[in-house]
């Protein structure tokens, strides 16, 4: 049996609606024009509806026609075989990693053209905290398990070229020289497609240049910056860990805008209680400063109105909406304050009495859906009136309630700090459970109370062994973030006490 050339294989991993099929088509057309045998196939199905899908091509040179010989027809595979892929193109990091795990990129053979881009899965997005996978890890996998990797922010390249990603990827493939196809054949394929030809050609050229010049030297990335890092540190702050100062600064700025200088002084007072205590290091202080500022800047109706009137916000909206210069923009706010939100603006006594009245009448679930046009005077003035209640805020029921909550939390932090410093760290983090509005907020408060009564108080009284204390608080917080129904938290607490009971029995 005479050994003949093996085909060059290309696998494209894409999400439905990204134009992976068009990309495969361009490559195939270019290959056919080049005089190659090309076969392509795919498994779109319902995966077209935003699921993950793949396209597979095999490309084989036509054998030189010998006089009188039949031009043999190749038997090209319809399935990619692991370890046998020459080029893997991935439009999204997780899907690219999935392909790598299945063996469709290997260190001995595969050129991996990948995009540093995440389209989060529902599981990642819907998590109650941060459910995202670590993108660096995904990228490292792609680099480790490929012969060479051309991985970068090609999505950004596409945006800058005003083109679609698939055209940029085609350009990168052409620029890599992995296939025996001349660049102009690809360009012809784009032209023959007849759709968005100019922008696709721009994208192609950008991708081509990217492959030739290598990866971006300065990838543009949004970074979280902590402001005020360079501000001078007054002497009296010198006993605070210096690493915690930027967060204290950020917290102070937030509260100055939120309520005023006096409120910032209250913030500083509260922090002071913990400075220099045993067990209070920089990470402890940073987390405390962060969560204390967040809890003190609680989101009442006044705060929401305040945020919605920020001038910077309108600029953000305009940029986001991709509006042209001459276009007018209206911003319609979706607000639906319930009686609790509104009545909690009254002084405590009056607020409680009115709430009780509404409850008796069964009116407490009523709420007012408001679509407020912040860009029109009618909407603006309503928000303005609300935000001007800032000075009144310290007299509201909500303020009193929040301050009492904060004091209770700080008190627990202080007590656990004396009892068992590692646990105190977890009690600080527990404040992160309380966030959001209406039901989300109530759920956070409920979970917090539950953890306090079932774990922290027994821990402080010695009912819960000290060695299990910190872990129990940590696990309870993680369980509270698992599901909105609170099932995981209930189960966690249940099994904690069952385990402790069993241990005690064994000990007796």
């Amino acid at each position, binding site marked *: 049996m005479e050994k003949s050339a093996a085909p060059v294989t290309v696998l494209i991993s894409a999400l439905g609606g990204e134009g992976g099929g068009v990309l495969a088509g361009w490559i195939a057309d270019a290959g056919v024009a080049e005089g190659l045998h090309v076969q392509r196939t795919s*498994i779109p199905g319902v995966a077209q509806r*935003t699921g993950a899908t793949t396209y597979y091509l095999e490309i084989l040179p036509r054998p030189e026609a010998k006089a009188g010989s039949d031009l043999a027809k190749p038997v090209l595979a319809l399935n990619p075989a692991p370890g046998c892929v020459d080029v893997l193109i991935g439009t999204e990091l997780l899907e690219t990693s999935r392909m790598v795990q299945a063996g469709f990129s290997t260190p001995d053979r595969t050129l991996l053209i990948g995009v540093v881009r995440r389209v989060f899965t*529902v599981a990642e997005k819907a998590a109650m905290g941060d459910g995202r996978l670590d993108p660096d890890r995904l990228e490292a996998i792609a680099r480790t398990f490929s012969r060479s990797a051309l991985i970068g922010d090609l999505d950004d390249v596409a945006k800058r070229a005003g083109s679609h990603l698939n055209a940029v990827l085609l350009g990168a493939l052409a620029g890599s020289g992995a296939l025996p196809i001349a660049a102009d054949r690809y360009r012809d394929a784009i032209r023959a497609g007849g759709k968005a030809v100019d922008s696709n050609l721009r994208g192609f050229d950008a991708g081509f240049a990217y492959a030739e010049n290598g990866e971006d030297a300065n990838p543009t990335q949004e970074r979280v910056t902590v402001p005020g890092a360079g501000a001078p540190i007054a002497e009296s702050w010198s006993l605070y860990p210096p690493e915690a100062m930027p967060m204290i*600064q950020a917290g102070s700025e937030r509260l100055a805008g939120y309520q005023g200088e006096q409120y910032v002084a209250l913030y500083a007072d509260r922090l002071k209680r913990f400075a220099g205590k045993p067990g209070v290091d920089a990470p402890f202080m940073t987390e405390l400063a*962060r969560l204390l500022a967040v809890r003190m800047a609680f989101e009442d109706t006044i705060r929401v109105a305040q945020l919605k009137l920020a001038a910077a916000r309108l600029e953000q909206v305009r940029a986001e909406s991709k509006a042209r210069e001459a276009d*007018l923009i209206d911003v319609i706010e979706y607000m639906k304050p319930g009686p609790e939100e509104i009545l909690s603006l009254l002084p405590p006594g009056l607020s409680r009495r009115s709430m009780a009245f509404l409850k008796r009448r069964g009116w407490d679930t009523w709420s007012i*859906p408001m679509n407020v046009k912040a860009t029109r005077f009618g909407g603006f003035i309503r928000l303005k009136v609300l935000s001007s209640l800032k000075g009144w805020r310290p007299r509201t029921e909500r303020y009193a309630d929040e301050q009492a909550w904060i004091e209770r939390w700080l008190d627990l932090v202080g007590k656990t700090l004396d009892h068992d410093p590692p646990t105190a760290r977890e009690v600080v983090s527990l404040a992160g459970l309380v966030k959001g509005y209406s039901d989300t907020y109530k759920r956070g408060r409920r979970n917090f109370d539950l953890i306090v009564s079932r774990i922290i108080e027994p821990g402080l009284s010695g009912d819960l062994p000290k060695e299990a204390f910190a872990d129990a608080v940590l696990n309870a917080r993680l369980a509270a973030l698992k599901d909105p129904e609170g099932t995981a938290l209930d189960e966690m607490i249940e099994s904690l006490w069952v385990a402790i009971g069993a241990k005690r029995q064994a000990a007796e």
Partner: protein
Amino acid sequence: MEVSFRREIESLRLGAGETFHGEGIMAVTKALLQSGVGYVGGYQGAPVSHLMDVLLQAEDLLDELGIHLETCTNEAAAAAMLAASINYPLRGAVTWKSIVGTNVAADALSNLSSAGVQGGALIIVGEDYGEGASVIQERTQAYAVKSSMWLLDPRPELPTIVKMVENGFELSEASSTPVILELRIRACHVFGSFEATDNKGSQHSAANRFAEPARFDYARLSHPPVTFVQEQDKVHRRLPAARAFITEHQLNEHMGPQDGDIGIIVQGGMFNVLNGRLAEAGLSDAYGNLGLPTHVLNVTYPLVPDEITEFCAGKRAVLIVEEGAPDFIEKDIGQILRQADLNTKIHGKDVLPVAGEYSPVAVAKGLSAFLSRYGRNESARLDDWVDAVEAQAQAVAREMTAPLPPRPPTFCTGCPERPVFSAMKMLREETGPVHVAADIGCHAFATFPPFSQGNSILGYGMSLASNAAVSGTQARRPLAVMGDGGFWHNGLLTGVAGAVFNQDDSVLVIFKNGYTSATGVQDVPSSRPHEEGRGRGLDIESALKSLGVGWVRNVRSYSVSTMRKTLKEALGTDEKGPKVIIADGECQLARQRRVRPANARAVVEGKRIVRTRFWVDPDVCTGDHSCIRLSGCPSLTVKPSLDPLKPEPVAHVNNDCVGCGLCGEVSHAAQLCPSFVRIEVIQNPNAWDRFRARLSSALIRLFGGYGAMPVTEAYPAPHAVPAE
């Protein structure tokens, strides 16, 4: 229709001497035209949706050739249409997705195959099996065997596929038997080329009609007593005729060397996977120059015993590569060899997976076991390869620490079905769960997160029927969901008529999105008539009322609050019999395809167009993501927080947002949070718009304008640290 085939349709006109380039399913279409088909029809479903789409878009060409085209309401109707070939010398072809479509068609198919055909009858099924499949995993082969229909499973390359279509009609006529042509997913979508021949018109057709109906011939009816005669005819005349035709026209292929002590028998459709692994073992190459004798079954039912015995004679063993369970072919071959008293050992499901797709790795493992048992050292190369593949999978898993999260398909951005499930989820939180019967269609995506609901799926349009006994035995009234596609396919009679007849206490939600969207946005009877479509605008509500449904509500599907209220009412009302809610909202895919270019044109022409989209205020968002848990919209995602105080990712609406309004509805209905904002971009504003905007901004300035956030200059007033 989702895909336009304007360009491809031109290639359907190619004639002799020209080369056709295109997708597998397009090649089948061209082959039908080359075979002189008289009528075509079918029901859409991946992976053969494109066949129906192309035929519909090629109506001009079909008219020229006099081909009658029927958009069937379900597969049973399509199968029944083949009755035209029982009495008349008329070639017909129908198509659908299998196994599910064949199940629906089964009654008509049994009757058709009993009576037998005069004109060639070809059933093109997309075998939705293995990776990418969306239905239960069963084999069409079972239907071929039990109804005595012949099953073609061609090698997945265009020339062979085309040859099998053409020979399929001849085989059908030579043996008076309907023939099924089975194409797997990748074969349907494979792009390749073949040498075309001229299209042929049918002798009798829509253009040249039969002047008289067939004379009365009781033998053509599948009705006793002739059914007993037909049963005998199947085995005594039709089967031998088919085998003779298969041998004479060499439908099955011998590849590789003539002789050898071991060999392989493979389904045609599996040949390319096998060849790839043989090449890996050094027993073949990219041109299929096989080192082992191989018998390729382009016809997997019936087998031709003489071909099998001839191939096996003198061999120690053969490997049978037959994908899926049960092992029909392997059993057949075993019986053939036993009866011929041949001692050739057969291997198949003992070394290859008993069930599941024959991926390259699965085939490699089986092939290696087979080769090593017969002392062939090529197995070592396959073992090395398999080991490397598995080692890498484990290495990546170790690097990843947690399993990679799955990414199932979901509702498109702006889908009108999503809000209904948001409403159902909110109601579930309010009143507790109820039993939900799911159905086939896009709405089945609600079985995935974040909705995760549905207690059963029993088939297309079967949801209401599947609740019949549930509703009679549950304390709380159950729900059934169904698309308008499922409603017209089956749900109207099987579900609604049955529930009215029995006064079942059930609630049905019908998604009226106007198309069978999951299969590629094809028209259904209730689709609005428009330029390209075949919709007739049949009214679902009057259909329901005329069947005697007393409680029918029409709710705009995006109105989450109204939908929640209506669902609650339906689940609580004292009304007897089925309660039906029609969730009205056009498929956003279809809508955007129409609206987007129209709006772009209007903007260029200077017309006033208001574009809406949603936005999440990152300062107001607290990173709890409950909005995502009630939506799952692809354009509602998360992004890194830029606020050092709130490091958790914030919700974010990306630029794919079509402004369907769900985000706002949900944040109102669930009282979520005030971070959602609707942006209205008035493009080409008119004088009144500009005046109002100017007036507003003047007044806003007058009252202090938008505020900048005050920024403190340094750290707050210092406090001495108590020296404790």
